[in-house]
């Protein structure tokens, strides 16, 4: 996609190569990202590290939407970080920690540019970034973390025993400090301005005196997270101000737009299939559709069977999906020919065959077009009233969606009692999460549990990934435990 590798400078970020040689630039794994990454980067890196990070953040978002427990979110995120965003402690001697940290820093900064532009995006970005920080904080090397905490001024002071004694009964009332025969226990207590721990104040979990909150060490994390949040909120604010003055660099704007959309639909991995490893023949499609396709493709398939036709964007969405699923060019032509049964051979050959070959990269630019991800389906080429493409979770009216869900999936175990949950998720705007939940429900018989998603807790971000996983599960069940890449 964006293969431009011009080396250039970005004004609001001010990259500068002079400092990158300093190997101690990132002494800690944890980072509050106060400084801009001062070095020059290629547009390629610029996009790559940001997308890697985005993938992790998008999964964190959908974890929130799916009401995962903190422990679940943590393990999903840790796994995702390992693949996309590795970040090791200084003690990991075999790894180039400085490069990892540099990339982490860069990705964060690019995403700031992408996410500062609306209040809603900012709020979501801060929430996801703070969760990511917390995951790393909790898994950090204790010693390194201690050093990191000392490296910043969190504006806390330790409460001395005199004061502990003075407030002994109140501290006891909060269950945060016990005294033994009038002598306070040794548990540490930090004094911070109350505005540093609004959550704890809100829940009356700290002692409040004169605007100071007395925070037990077990709640220390609250102070750190809040500081991280406040820091990031401020930074996004000033980034928003400076980006407003940024000239319309369309190239950059395009990349940034693309990224901020990633939150809406998750970030898809590229699907280059054929996901099943087997060739799929034209006459298998109908059967596969009924057993394995996500709702968007089921809908296209049914429209096609009913109307014997699909309009342009429908053909494009479905055609590319089938190609990646494993339909060869010959089978594809056979499939479409059969489906468009109302057309004469002549008309089909003239008007459609070329386009099918084109989408396989056999005509015109000879580009091998990838199938559309959920993000693209959700956000581009909004369907008109007589179109069948798009994502039903987003583009169907609620009533129609419910009817269609039941009609499509009740044979696979979806019941009307499941609808409430699915519809609630839809209402909140988490379309691909709703789709993921439907996947879980319709594969429950194969042992897929709530929260499993399409494997390891991941959400649906691509229709091909949905179908591939569904086929994989079926194969595994049939005892033909074939592993799919």
């Amino acid at each position, binding site marked *: 996609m964006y293969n431009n590798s011009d080396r250039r400078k970005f004004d609001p970020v001010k990259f500068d190569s002079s400092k990158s040689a300093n190997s101690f630039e990132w002494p800690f794994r944890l980072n509050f990202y106060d400084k801009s990454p001062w070095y020059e980067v290629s547009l390629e890196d610029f996009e790559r590290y940001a997308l890697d990070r985005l993938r992790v953040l998008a999964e964190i978002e959908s974890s929130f939407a799916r009401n995962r427990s903190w422990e679940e979110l943590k393990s999903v995120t840790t796994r995702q970080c390992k693949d996309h965003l590795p970040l090791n402690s200084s003690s990991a001697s075999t790894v180039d920690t400085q490069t990892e940290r540099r990339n982490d820093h860069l990705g964060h900064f690019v995403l700031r540019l992408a996410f500062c532009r609306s209040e809603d995006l900012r709020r979501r970005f801060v929430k996801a970034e703070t969760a990511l920080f917390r995951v790393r904080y909790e898994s950090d090397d204790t010693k390194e973390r201690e050093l990191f905490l000392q490296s910043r001024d969190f504006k806390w002071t330790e409460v001395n025993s005199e004061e502990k004694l003075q407030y002994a009964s109140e501290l006891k009332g909060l*269950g945060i400090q016990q005294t033994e025969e009038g002598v306070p226990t040794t548990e540490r207590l930090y004094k911070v301005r109350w505005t540093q721990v609004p959550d704890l*104040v809100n829940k009356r979990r700290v002692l409040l005196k004169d605007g100071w909150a007395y925070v037990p060490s077990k709640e220390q994390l609250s102070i750190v997270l809040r500081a991280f949040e406040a820091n990031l909120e401020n930074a996004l604010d000033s980034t928003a101000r400076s980006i407003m003055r940024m000239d319309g660099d369309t190239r950059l704007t395009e990349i940034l737009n693309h990224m901020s959309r990633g939150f809406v639909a998750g970030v898809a991995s590229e699907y280059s299939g054929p996901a099943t490893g087997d060739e799929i023949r034209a006459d298998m499609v109908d059967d596969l559709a009924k057993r394995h396709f996500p709702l968007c493709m089921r809908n296209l398939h049914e429209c096609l069977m009913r109307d014997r036709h699909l309009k342009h964007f429908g053909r494009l969405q479905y055609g590319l999906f089938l190609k990646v699923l494993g339909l060869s060019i010959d089978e594809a032509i056979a499939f479409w020919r059969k489906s468009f049964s109302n057309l004469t051979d002549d008309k089909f050959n003239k008007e459609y065959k070329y386009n099918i070959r084109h989408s396989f990269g056999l005509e015109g630019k000879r580009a091998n077009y990838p199938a559309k991800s959920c993000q693209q389906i959700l956000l581009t080429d909004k369907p008109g009233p007589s179109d069948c493409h798009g994502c039903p979770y987003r583009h169907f009216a609620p009533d129609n969606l419910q009817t269609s869900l039941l009609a499509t999936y009740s044979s696979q175990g979806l019941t009307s009692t499941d609808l409430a949950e699915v519809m609630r998720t839809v209402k909140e705007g988490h379309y691909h999460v709703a789709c993921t939940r439907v996947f879980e429900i319709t594969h429950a018989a194969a042992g897929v549990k709530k929260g499993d998603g399409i494997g390891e807790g991941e959400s649906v971000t691509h229709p091909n990934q949905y179908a591939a996983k569904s086929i994989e599960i079926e194969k595994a069940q049939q005892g033909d435990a074939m592993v799919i890449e």
Partner: protein
Amino acid sequence: MADSAETSPEVMLQFYRMLYPFKSIFTWLNQEHAPKDLFTNREFAFTLKEDVYLRYNCFSNAEELKKQVCALNPTRFEIGPMYSSRPSERKLARSVKSGKLFTPLKRELVFDIDMTDYDGVRTCCTSAGICKRCWAFIANAVRVLDSALRTQFGYHQLLWVYSGRRGIHLWVSDDEAMGLTDELRRAVVGALTVIEGGKEMAKKVNVRGMGTKSHPGDLPPSLWHARDEGSRMWYPLLDDQECFLSEDGWRTLLKLVPDKKIVETLEKRWEKQPGIESSKKWNELKAEVKGTGARNLAALEDIILQYTYPRLDAEVSKHRNHLLKAPFCVHPKTGRVCVPVDPNRVENFDPNAVPTVMQLLQELDKAGEGANWEHTSLKPYVDMLDRHIVGILDDVRRRERARVVLQHDLNW
């Protein structure tokens, strides 16, 4: 009582021209004598007759404000936040290229307590009505909140203002309070909210931490003062309001007692003797509870809180850009002026003794040519605001000095 002549447009215009203390209001909002953004970027909203509502007005100084108020002659006006740019230029500021944003930056932390929220516990009046007797609830709310904001949050620039009818407003002008984000405002409200759940929820106080089977959670220390104040007013309140005299009243009380055996005993007894007064009923409940363990004792504390703890209109306090009626406005129904209230003498405040706009204009007439508010019974109230302002200005100067010293140190 007050009729519409009391607040006719002519009367209101006279009031704004001759009596409204624009200068003091200006200095109070501006926190300095020379106009600065705390005043000039401040939103004012006017309510005109026929419910026309004009938002996003702003003014350079007290004179401009007065001129516009007299020109529009609103039934009342409200004060909003200081924005990042002048509210009148918000369209320009919102346009992308200017590099400025239009967002609320500062605003007094405000609270609104309204007597209608006490309809479940007061028996003397309902809905819009208020009398000296209901005021006991407001007085307690003032004592509790005033103390919590001072001792817990460390705020000192508190201005309490009678809302003109059946409630009271609080404006907190401390520097930190002015700058609180909505999130932080929500935290303050959360910490100060105790009564929760609608009409259908019998037990509205759920503030204790995790307890065990025999031991209820502790009452958080931040509510100890409220509990003590509530206990202090408890018997006088019961004697006055007779909350448990009616069958409805005592049944509501028994719903809050967790111990089934006690409930049954008292139910039987009180059904037979309908006339027992509230304080006696309370004593009987206490006698039953005695010796039955910490859980029941905690329930008694919770009951006292439920009947006495301040009932906040949370939405007013949570948002920086919420508009709140300016002090010294006139309530259109009662004709009474929204005057400041001294929290230390709040129990002596009589809402029905607050001067009405008609009364003030008559006093002004009597005082003759060239008279102003100083010659009317509005004076003690304006003086109260002016004294409050002195405190705020002192604070500002102290901060300013500290900043200079700090800079000096750094330069050195």
